[in-house]
């Protein structure tokens, strides 16, 4: 069967499944729309949280980020999982006990301030909107590559599917679709990894194969990889090469940012009990870890596979010839991906061979001159194609490729839906009901939530079709905002009875402004090119890159909030009682019944 037809079957079947779930799980009340009626089993919620959290970045980009950098990018692995410890210990159970629908609602009630709620809503909408652009462009790319339709058509199809289950189903529809999407994406990620691990190491578990022996040479896989990449002038894979301070701060920023992302936090509102919220965070990390334990193996094995494809007889023998690439079916994937513009090569020295090496390394100059090389001839290798092209590189059957196509789309769509839900509930519950029209009926609120969702999808689709030039940099912005504003406010709201309305607002604004300014100083004001005064290669503060600043922004938030609170009035008695009640699980059912 033609590969295109296989891809179409897999993607079509998965979409039919999501629509089917949407029809089954329509939301009839605001409680169902915002929190799936608080009836989701902790394991089910854990699975949905995992799909919600693992975006196009986790599925498509992360293994590539690790493959081409090695140890130094372990920050992504530790940062994006370590945040769940913070979430489980410091936020999830208490916010579930509070028993309302949105993150900003907690901030508004706890700090008895409409301003605090408004600041939180703005942070939430900006963080979620910038994050959703990346998901929508991911949907377009996956469609464009696997279904041979234009980016625009792909994006519109994706938007219609999200519309179907998110607008009608709300949190209930999104939750159950995310469970299905998790199953699709984890199979799509692990099946090719198992095949490749078997081929390279003989071990069917990729996470173990990574630390096992390379079957062909008998040496440990990572030692083999270190050897082969250093022979080509690249940095050793397992060595710590990057700046330590920046690596620590970057990891910490990813952790705090993860714990502060509203679309993840609000998933814990859907479970029936406080104790379920605690278990559910653990289950979420189990399902996330299945991918995150596999990802470093995928990265290392793909790096080894690709390097060996260019040097089939070892790095001291002749490189692969242009003729082989064009005629050998094992190299077909290179021709397919060349068409997308994400992969390219050029025989610069005209010897009919493609030499792939690090021409920026001065130590390679002598070797290159002696061998007659005139530069790296693999001129373009976009890191994002690594996971998508992996099954083709390893020569896996056509159905695996179809599955990976469906998996990439599942990852992007599930995260997009979660983000859109966070945006629409912020608009309808916090802005319309909370600020503009408190007397709105439940029916009216449900309708406005659906309209807000439809508008959010339209805006996200538009931004996906016309991505602003800064699209790639906005993820840093989303994490920076979540880390510097939302996480500290939530944590202080639960763990301190001293922080008052003035302290919280001042803290959030200080963390937010300083973080924004630091990002703008390095990336350009409002991301306009050439307006930056510093670069991440030579940052303002020592070695701290703008992507690592979220942790410092959070520290500023904590410090300012304490300073301002200690100079202003103590908490009113009823807020003290609120904090006391949030700290104990008993009575969580009562909070639920208020709605």
């Amino acid at each position, binding site marked *: 069967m033609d590969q295109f037809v296989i891809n179409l079957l897999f993607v079509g079947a998965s979409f039919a499944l999501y629509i089917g779930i949407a029809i089954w799980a329509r939301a009839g009340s605001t409680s169902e729309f915002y929190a799936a009626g608080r009836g989701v089993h902790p394991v089910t919620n854990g699975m949905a949280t995992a799909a919600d959290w693992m975006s196009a970045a986790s599925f498509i980009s992360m293994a590539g980020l690790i493959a081409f950098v090695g*140890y130094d990018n372990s920050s992504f692995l530790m940062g994006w*999982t370590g945040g769940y*410890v913070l979430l489980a210990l410091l936020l999830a159970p208490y916010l579930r006990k509070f028993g309302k629908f949105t993150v900003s609602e907690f901030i508004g009630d706890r700090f008895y301030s409409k301003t605090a709620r408004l600041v939180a809503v703005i942070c939430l909408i900006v963080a979620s909107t910038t994050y959703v652009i990346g998901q929508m462009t991911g949907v377009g790319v996956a469609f464009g590559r696997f279904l041979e339709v234009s980016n625009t058509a792909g994006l519109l199809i994706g938007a219609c599917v999200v519309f179907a289950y998110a607008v009608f189903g709300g949190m209930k529809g999104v939750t159950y679709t995310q469970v299905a999407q998790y199953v699709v994406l984890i199979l799509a990620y692990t099946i090719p990894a198992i095949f490749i691990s078997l081929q390279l190491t003989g071990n069917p578990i990729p996470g173990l194969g990574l630390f096992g022996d390379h079957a062909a040479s008998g040496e440990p896989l990572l030692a083999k990889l270190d050897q082969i990449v250093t022979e080509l002038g690249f940095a050793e894979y397992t060595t710590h090469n990057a700046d330590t301070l920046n690596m*620590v701060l970057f990891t910490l920023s990813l952790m705090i940012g993860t714990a502060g992302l509203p679309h993840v936090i609000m998933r814990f509102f859907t479970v029936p009990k406080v104790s379920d919220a605690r278990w559910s965070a*653990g289950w979420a990390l189990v399902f996330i870890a299945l991918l995150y334990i596999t990802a470093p193996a995928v990265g290392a094995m793909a790096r080894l596979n690709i390097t060996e494809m260019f040097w089939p007889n070892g790095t001291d023998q002749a490189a692969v010839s242009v003729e082989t690439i064009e005629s050998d079916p094992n190299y077909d994937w290179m021709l397919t991906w060349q068409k997308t513009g994400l992969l390219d090569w050029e025989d610069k020295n005209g010897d009919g061979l493609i030499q792939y090496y690090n021409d920026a390394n001065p130590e390679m100059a002598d070797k290159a001159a002696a061998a007659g090389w005139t530069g790296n001839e693999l001129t373009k290798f976009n890191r994002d194609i690594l996971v998508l092209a992996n099954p083709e590189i390893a020569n896996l059957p056509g159905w695996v490729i179809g599955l990976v196509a469906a998996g990439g789309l599942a990852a992007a769509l599930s995260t997009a839906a979660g983000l859109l839900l966070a945006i629409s509930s912020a608009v309808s519950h916090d802005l319309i009901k909370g600020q503009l029209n408190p007397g709105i009926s439940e029916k009216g609120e449900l309708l406005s939530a659906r309209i807000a969702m439809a508008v959010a999808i339209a805006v996200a689709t538009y931004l996906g079709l016309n991505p602003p030039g800064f699209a790639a940099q906005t993820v840093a912005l989303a994490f920076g905002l979540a880390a510097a504003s939302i996480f500290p406010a939530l944590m202080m709201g639960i763990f301190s009875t001293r922080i008052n309305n003035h302290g919280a607002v001042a803290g959030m604004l200080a963390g937010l402004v300083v973080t924004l300014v630091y990002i703008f100083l390095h990336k350009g004001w409002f991301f306009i090119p050439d307006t930056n005064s510093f670069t991440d290669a030579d940052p303002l503060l020592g070695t701290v890159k703008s992507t690592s600043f979220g942790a410092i922004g959070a520290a500023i938030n904590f410090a300012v909030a304490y300073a301002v609170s200690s100079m202003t009035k103590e908490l009113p008695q009823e807020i003290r009682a609120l904090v006391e009640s949030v700290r104990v699980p008993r009575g969580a*059912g009562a909070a639920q019944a208020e709605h």
Partner: protein
Amino acid sequence: MSDDTNGNAYWAANLRIITWSLVIWALVSFGFGILLRPLLSAIPVGGTDLGFWFAQQGSILVFLALIFNYAWQMNKLDRQYGVDEQ
């Protein structure tokens, strides 16, 4: 952050578990995975050292253990202090 916890044994016990969990959380990731990696470089794991394993796999497994341990301990504590949900 424990400014108003006098006389509240349940909350104090909770804060104790959280503190210990976060100490371990930081030790395996920032400690073993990054800052203390040179000290662990003598312990070989599959072609590299223990610090690399912690950075790419070990820390995630410890995070899992921490969350499940916290859920289990807190549910026990809830019943002990009679603040669990009926």
